[in-house]
């Protein structure tokens, strides 16, 4: 990025203010309601700026009048006794109330129109994705009429850019809330209720989402990624996810698969194409293709994976994955196998 001459010419104080603002606000935009990447988030952020402007004006005005009322200079006590003053005050208060009503009405209309905008997303040709909340991870399913074409994954949702997506939301245990601020507001996942959320990404990118309804110990670290990518990249990803797990290609990986299948891992996790068919924990068929581990908490690196397997309770206290002791050779083999599950 080049810095233009006009920017350099700005007074120093504004640079300081800007730097302070930047320091305070951070510069991450991957989970921000103000950095819209889809039509709905854009509408909401427009509504926010309108309301902010109106409310800021009201705030300044009310506080200004208040301070003037307190600190205005008073000529004498007689001014207080002025009978016209009371009448004028009645008019002023009445007028202020009338203006309040008008402002509220305007904001109400703005809100209703923004609401209509949110629900006007056409869902023709939409991609349907089922999202199930678990304590404390997200199960993602791409349903297909052919059972063999089902895709099950966890904590990472790929969507095609520019195409509406309908998310069918359900919960397996307690109430969770699905929220990707860059794309849309939140929708609760309520046991016994099926809810839906329609959204669309207008530009490619990785957007982070996070559970927004308190759901127990690891509510704080129950995140997921939405990867918005061009249609062809998306179909390539989906095709790849449909395949059963990669077979081990060397002794190390074969040893690792044996370790997996002979340890408690397989009680909870599924790896399609192997006997491991546990349903209570994330599907690991294509574990190595994901960006993050442990519901958006750790980068998907062999080191982080090893740390997670050895001591998950240290990284996310209270989560439902028990620690399991492997001797170093077993662990190395297991990692080699898991890392091969592209």
């Amino acid at each position, binding site marked *: 990025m080049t810095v233009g001459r006009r920017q350099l010419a700005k007074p120093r104080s504004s640079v300081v203010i800007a730097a302070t603002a930047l320091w*305070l*606000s*951070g*510069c*991450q935009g991957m*989970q*921000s*309601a103000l950095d819209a990447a889809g039509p709905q*988030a854009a509408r909401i952020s427009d*509504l*926010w700026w309108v*309301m902010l402007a109106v*409310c800021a004006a009201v*705030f300044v005005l*009310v*506080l200004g*009048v208040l301070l*003037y*009322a*307190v600190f205005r200079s008073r000529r004498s006590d007689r001014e*207080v006794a002025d009978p016209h*003053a009371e009448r004028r*005050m*009645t008019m002023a*208060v009445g007028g202020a*109330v009338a203006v*309040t*009503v008008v402002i*509220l009405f305007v*904001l*109400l209309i703005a*809100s209703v129109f*923004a*609401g209509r*905008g949110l*629900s006007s997303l056409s869902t023709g040709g939409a991609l349907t994705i089922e999202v199930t909340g678990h304590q404390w991870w997200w199960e993602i399913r791409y349903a297909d009429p052919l059972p063999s074409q089902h895709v099950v994954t966890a904590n990472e949702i790929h969507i095609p850019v520019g195409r509406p997506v309908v998310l069918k939301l359900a919960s397996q*245990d307690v*109430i969770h809330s699905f*929220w990707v*601020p860059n794309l849309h*507001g*939140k*929708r*609760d996942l*309520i*046991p*016994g*209720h099926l809810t839906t959320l329609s959204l669309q990404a207008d530009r490619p990118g990785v957007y*982070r989402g*996070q*559970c*927004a*309804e*308190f759901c*127990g110990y690891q509510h*704080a*670290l129950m995140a997921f990624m939405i990867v918005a990518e061009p249609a062809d990249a998306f179909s390539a990803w989906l095709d790849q996810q449909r395949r059963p797990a990669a077979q081990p290609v060397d002794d190390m990986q074969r040893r690792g698969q044996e370790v997996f299948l002979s340890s408690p891992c397989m009680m909870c996790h599924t790896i399609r194409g192997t006997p491991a068919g546990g349903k209570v924990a994330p599907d690991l068929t294509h574990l190595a293709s994901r960006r993050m581990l442990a519901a958006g*908490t750790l980068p998907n690196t062999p080191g982080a994976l090893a740390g997670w397997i050895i001591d998950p309770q240290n990284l996310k*206290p*209270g989560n439902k994955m028990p620690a399991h002791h492997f001797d170093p050779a077993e662990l190395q083999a297991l990692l080699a196998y898991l890392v091969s599950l592209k």
Partner: protein
Amino acid sequence: MAQVGEAGVAVAFDDSDRQALEQTWRSPTGLWGWLSNADHRAIGKRIIATAFLFFLLGGTLALLMRAQLARPESRFLGPDLYNQIFTIHGTTMMFLFAVPIMQGLGVYLVPLMVGTRNIAFARLVAFSYYLFLFGGIMLYVAFLLNIGPDVGWFSYVPLAGPEYGPGKRADFWAQLITFTELSSLSIAVALIVTIFHLRAPGMSLNRIPLFVWSILVMSMMVIFAMPSVMLASTMLIMDRLVGTHFFNPAEGGDALLWQHLFWFFGHPEVYIIFIPALGIVSSVIATFSRRQIFGYTAIVLSLVSTAFMGFGLWVHHMFATDVPQLGQSFFTAASMMIAIPSGVQIFCWIATLWGGRPRLQTPLLFVLGFFFVFVLGGLTGVMLAAVPFDLQVHDTFFVVAHFHYVLIGGAVFPLFGGLYYWCPKITGRMLSERVGRWNFWLLFVGFNLTFFPMHQLGLEGMPRRVYTYLAEMGWDRLNLLASLGAALIALGVVVFIGNVLWSYRHGAIAVGNPWQAGTLEWATNSPPPPYNFLHMPTISGREPLWECNAEQPIVTGLRHNIREVLVTNVLDAEPDHRTRLPGPSIWPFFTALAVSGLFVGSIFTPWAVPVGSIPITGALIGWLWPSEKDHQDQLAMEE
């Protein structure tokens, strides 16, 4: 028969009358006497002091949370402890601090402001105090044993239900609700009856001080809102204890039912806390502007309409559930509409200040702080009423910022102003003005430093109720700022405590009416004698002390050897009949003990209900058993 006599009669009172009143109304001494006391000033002071203690405890928990969130991925508190802390912080502030302290102020001030000698049903109020105290102790004992509730002050099912909330944690929460709501309900009844029937002759409805109006409206709201949450918490404890399935979708129950019941109470709860604070603001503004409040009728109608509307917006806590869109629009409109009565009051107060000659003393300073903070919080509230925007920031730090702006701004700032204002009446000593200013500025700057950045955090995607966050989220700086602000708030509160303690010994002696205020609580000594007023007053205006009418009659003809007061009618406060108020009794204390036994026991076994009823029955029989003195007093009155 009591009658309204001429002012000249006053001279007829002599020291023997004063002594007789003193003898009749004095509080018993010793530990036994302390436990039997049924004097509104003593009980009011206890409620205020106990609630303030819980405020300090809840505030300490807040500081622990801010310490944890000051840095990303901090290991200071784990999720188990953090969840308990935020649950108990919210529960304490709502149920053990905010509602009780407002009711405590009401218990202390209302009988003085309406010009009578004690609160109606004083024993019931004493009973309520012990219940509130025991409930609070139960919660903190559970917390110290590390089995405190950890599912939030809202205890959403199924997380709080039998399947996902093992142990007894959510049960402690549910029973705390039963304790505190029973206590608030009883106090509300006592306050309503006092306001309706023990007013000084002449204090017709349109002359009731605005603080008393606010207490009346709040008490009415308590009566309509609290049953909903008591019902909900009882259903929750039954789901957990005896396997009913009110909230279990697998057995035909519904998880959303809880949210409706809870917020049907939970939203009015906010106004229950905030409406008395509006009464404080009105009192302080009138006194420190040195003029009658502008728009008395408009303010009263605003209070009443706020109370009505407060029951019609609970669904705005549930916009992210599957409430249909039409329903959402209704609740959006209702939530925005409630800004109108608040606006009316704010404009009336500004007009009062405009037309008066303001004295910028500490109580008014806190009220000005209230304007700044509360107006900001009110405006973000209007924003939150808009469903699309709410969907983004619901359950984020934006909402945390919003409701701390309305609750601390709307209730705690006026409360501190009110304490500076009425402390001289309660303790007989003036608080230091200079320290008061330090107190205000520390609190004001600290508050804004803590909570303003949270708006930004919410917009940047930080959800509420998280015990930690990842370093790469970029939320660390604003969180650090908020934690530093919290330290300033703590300092401000310490300065306040220092001021109270110092002034209690060394403060300037307060005269009866140190602020030249206009309402009746200032017409007696500071602190008031046990009988409140030597001469039971009558009034002929809203600010009786400003009217300086030497010919104002007083009430005569009430016996001095019996706790006798004048009962007046609801509308015009015309004298109706005399009644005898109850004296001290140990039984409210024993009854509260017995009821607490049942409540705590029923956390562990359903048998506590039938077995626990036996001591309650015994205690109630003791309470209602007529004493020899009751009998003689009754005979004397019938003569």
